[in-house]
């Protein structure tokens, strides 16, 4: 690998990748679009290795076709949700953060819980609407308000901008929470993939900075470890839909090419946190056939070791995003059911 030594690593011994679940493997084969791994492999072949090719790779990644994002109309679900936008100030006073607010229109007798959603997209793509339909599905049984944050993206806005936007967005919204009749004791931070990284970071920041009370963190196949050197990150190279080359691109975009990922802070890469105590109860899940497998398992282990509460699911044969690519599959049904049940149990009075 060409590039600074800090991005070169020693490869741990691994066996062949675990097989994909039959149904999600079939769905992936039938999709017309290319996976991030395919897109980045093609872009690397064309533009050469990181870090020099970083801008070209980011562009190729953003340009590749994907699912369309939901409109306000889609999000309202025929009037079930009132969809509005609001802006809250960044803590450093440099501008505003936009939030999408989806509020159930049914009259609630009690203050409603809040699902604070942080979208995925590998640190470099996505909007506050990415994956928001799935968040609304999770929110429905618990009658929660869903707020999704439009954080600034790397590499144009490297760390700490994205994570700080996520944190400031939550603090800013809760300052106005009374307007929305949101229960301050029912705040759950939820994120998938890169959003899972920021969700975990928001919980660490809230703990350390005397921030808002957070009732739970729902980390769906989160991207947590900037070092990109776990066994699963090597084992699933070229196999998972988000493989180690994609992962290098995401982390290098966030941290900047000059930085050693091993020196990332806990707020940048929660796997590097020295202290995982006193965090809100966590739900973590990951597929057995994805890059993030080992870092997610290790993060849950760290929370338990620190005396915290965590529920961990490793779904056999899942690649990154299987539950979004093939929500109809048996394993995806079980995944969404487990997430929803955890949330219901967490928030039940």
């Amino acid at each position: 690998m060409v590039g600074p030594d800090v991005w070169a690593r020693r490869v741990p011994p691994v066996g062949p990748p675990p097989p994909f679940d039959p149904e999600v493997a079939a769905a992936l084969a039938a999709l017309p679009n290319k996976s991030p791994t395919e897109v980045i492999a093609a872009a690397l072949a064309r533009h050469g290795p990181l870090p020099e090719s970083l801008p070209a790779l980011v562009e190729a990644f953003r340009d590749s076709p994907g699912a369309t994002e939901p409109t306000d109309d889609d999000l309202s679900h025929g009037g079930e949700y009132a969809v509005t936008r609001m802006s809250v100030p960044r803590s450093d006073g440099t501008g505003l953060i936009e939030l999408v607010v989806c509020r159930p229109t049914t009259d609630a007798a009690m203050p409603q819980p809040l699902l604070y959603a942080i979208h995925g997209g590998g640190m470099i793509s996505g909007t506050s609407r990415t994956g928001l339909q799935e968040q609304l599905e999770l929110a429905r049984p618990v009658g929660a308000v869903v707020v999704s944050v439009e954080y600034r993206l790397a590499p144009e806005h490297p760390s700490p901008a994205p994570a700080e936007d996520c944190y400031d967005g939550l603090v800013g919204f809760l300052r106005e929470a009374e307007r929305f009749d949101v229960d301050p004791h029912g705040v759950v931070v939820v994120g998938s993939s890169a959003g899972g990284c920021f969700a975990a970071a928001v919980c660490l920041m809230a703990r350390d900075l005397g921030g808002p009370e957070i009732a739970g963190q729902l980390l769906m196949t989160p991207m947590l470890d900037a070092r990109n050197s776990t066994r699963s990150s090597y084992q699933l190279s070229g196999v998972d839909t988000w493989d180690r080359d994609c992962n290098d691109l995401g982390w290098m975009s966030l941290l900047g090419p000059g930085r050693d990922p091993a020196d990332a802070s806990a707020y940048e890469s929660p796997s590097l946190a020295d202290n995982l105590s006193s965090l809100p109860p966590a739900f973590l899940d990951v597929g057995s056939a994805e890059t993030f497998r080992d870092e997610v398992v290790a993060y849950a282990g760290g929370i338990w070791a620190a005396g915290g509460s965590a529920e961990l699911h490793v779904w056999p044969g899942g690649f990154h995003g299987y539950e979004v690519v093939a929500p109809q599959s048996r394993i995806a049904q079980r995944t969404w059911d487990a997430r929803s049940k955890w949330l219901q149990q967490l928030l039940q009075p």
Partner: protein
Amino acid sequence: MEELAGRLAPLDPDAGSALRVVSYYDELLAHRGGLESVVRGAAVLSGAPARMMIPGWRCAIRILPDGRRDDEPSPAEAGWASVSQPDPSVTLWIERLAPPGPVDAVILERALLAARTVLERTPGRLAISRNDPATVEVAIDADAPPEARARAARQLGLTAGQLVRVVAWEGRPAQLQAAAQPISVADSRQRVGIGPAVPVKNAPDSAQAARLALRFASDADDHRVVHADDLGVLLLLGETISEAHQRWRSHPDVLAVQRAAGHAAWVLPTFDAVAVSDSLRTAAAILVVHHSTLQKRVSQFPRLLGWDVTTPSGRLRLQLALFVVRLTQQT
């Protein structure tokens, strides 16, 4: 990821859709997907409920377009798009009026092909009940020709290289099953004898041992299920006794046990419990009687039997006499 690769949705009839159906089922089979996954594919790709019936396998699956399983007994409508094949009879429906559109036609064709592949690679796993008594009878019959036994075993879903065992039941036909398969006798009130694991071709040996083990079983809770493997030399003893039971039956100890058993209803269960327990307290627990009641009964044993059962050698003597009674009665 989610905004990049998109998600699997019902296919529109365009140039690429047939290829995508083919890719879907090729990949499903490469990853050894099962019948339910075959039907789920049809429902998801077509956007309509899909169902499959395989009467010979007692298999009926219905899947909704969102992937949820929803088996419902309503009969299939004659007008729906469907494909079927004979032997084994398999029918697949997409719950939309025929004639099928171009995409549905490809889906049905590929799904049927996939179902056939799944059936072929799971020989007899569901095809014939494992308890089909006539087939088991042939597979464990020492006098049947080896080819006939091998064929019967195959029909029961057992392959030549596999280890198998026989489970002999009191009052119902024996079972032949893979040695690795768990034996479901947990809630049995019947006596059960379990044969040793043997290669398929030696199934009759496992059957003989299982039948002998069954004779060593008693109605005491912990002794209702007997594994031939646990009997040690008693198994050989059992064979010997079965072959020359007249001689054994007339032994004075055996006659004494039989005579005593006729004395009162509690005698035989009490003998059984005492013979297999290492203390009177344990025996009392098996019998669900008070310790002092049992002590009273046991004090009568020297008179009934002619020997003391409270010593280890006396208990062994009682055990052996009980075994012979049981073996010779049932022979």
